[in-house]
């Protein structure tokens, strides 16, 4: 069982706020899912190499050529708030 403190800690790491109800529900759902995936620890995998990508690729290089990227206006076009060519955000806490 994952404790309430652990759920709060993980939510903080994930930048999520959970209210009382959501905390309790998330705690029990997370416990159930983690219990299930824990079966992975029962396998003897000593000496087995981990796979990051299923289709092996090595040395993928593109040509060293430049091309046009987004303009500043395009890059800022979806910003919730922009000022003087920058993304504007609230002050640091």
């Amino acid at each position: 069982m994952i404790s309430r403190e652990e759920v709060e800690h993980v939510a903080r790491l994930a930048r999520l706020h959970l209210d009382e109800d959501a905390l309790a529900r998330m705690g029990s759902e997370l416990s159930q899912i983690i219990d299930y995936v824990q079966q992975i620890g029962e396998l003897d995998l000593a000496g087995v190499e981990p796979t990051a990508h299923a289709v092996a690729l090595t040395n993928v290089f593109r040509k060293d050529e430049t091309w046009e990227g987004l303009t500043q206006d395009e890059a800022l076009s979806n910003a919730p708030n922009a000022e003087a060519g920058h993304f504007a955000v609230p002050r640091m806490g």
Partner: protein
Amino acid sequence: MSHDVYELSGVRCRELLESGEASATELVQAYLDRMRGVDGQVGAYLLTNEEAALRQAAAIDAKPAEERGPWEGVPIAVKDILATKGVETTCASRILSGYRPPYDATAIRKLNEAGLIILGKLNMDEFAMGSSTENSAFQPTRNPWDLERVPGGSSGGSAAAVAAAETPWALGTDTGGSIRQPASLCGVVGLKPTYGAVSRYGLIAFASSLDQIGPLTRTVSDAAALLGIVEGQDPLDSTSTGLREPIRLPTERDLAGRRFGVIKEFLGEAIDSGVREVFNDACKTIEVLGGVVEEVSLPSVERGIAAYYIIAPAEASSNLARFDGVRYGYRSDEGEDLLSMYTHTRSEGFGPEVKRRIMIGTYVLSAGYYEAYYGQAQRTRTLIIQDFNRTFADYDYLISPTSPSVAFKLGERTADPLAMYLSDLCTIPVNLAGLPAISLPAGFSQGLPVGLHMISPHFGEQALVDAAHALEQKFQLGARPALTEVTE
């Protein structure tokens, strides 16, 4: 001219345009009319591109025939996970509502360059997380075969739109079965290509080592044709490879000498009896066509779901960190400072399933747990790949049902997230191993479609569509969903 939209595939649209029997405008109009008639019931589209589609069609019709590309003027619709320049792209999430990408996904660019006409953007589970399309932040999509039931997911809008003939074909994405399972539940063809065959540039990332774009279509030929249009190596996605050879439209009529392995681990208690019956009949049809069918065992695939529900949420929690209210999408008005703005934005912007997956991923990657979960999962993945490789030494194809059940009712499985996850047992190991696989309509149980799942070795797409085509010609399933068009 009036067309029976059910008779139109992508290839058929091309033929009508080439012979002059239909104009691009007539085709686009036929689908817009169909959408108006049935999408109020189905809910497949999040956005329709009506004006731009008609404008593009008129421009194509004005061109001399000899200046047109082969696919120019054929309509298509795409899952709303693919970035479309200047056209709202939401991933069915509140956190991206209003987002107009300043660029096209590579797959979209290839559709545009081939002259296909994009009719609109299709519904999905939020960020492709789900198996029923009920996790869309905006609307449910209903199964055209029974409006009380789900279309599957996460590409549920794509599957339902093709099944309801609201587009000749569509693009979806598949991370753990998200093309094949909805294709199975809606009675259409769904092809998940080899990892890397199609560029992921502009595909809003869920789990980058698993995500792949692919076609949902009415026919196997269409799946081959559409894959041929969008595949290819892309400098903007360094994991992309393209296919090794251009794919041809399939013409095979028999399966002489081909060897099919039935994966024993995918035929356990979880499979409903009606699905099992259709699957057993399909095996007999394979034998009638000259194929050899034998049972095989891949013990490691039983750990596939556990490995997947570590790897996919881990990658998702990292990929979805970018949604912070700074550069695009939704920003909460709450919050005095930066950290609190992030937290409010994400808490208000993401739906429950997305939060759940972010939490699982953050948990398994957090200090002290990495090796026990993520490390073990990536090693399990190696075993699964080795099991597939070993089996493919003796068999050309591995087969199973696509989904353990036919389409279920809306709301039936939403209360139990783990039960919903477990229903992906046959499709998930394929993504972990990066293999190509197809779901082909094989029959009906309780009047609802059942799909046959066929897997082939890496870059075996040609062999896959060849065999699927031979079976499709033999099955000759003529049934259509009974939808009533609403007239205004």
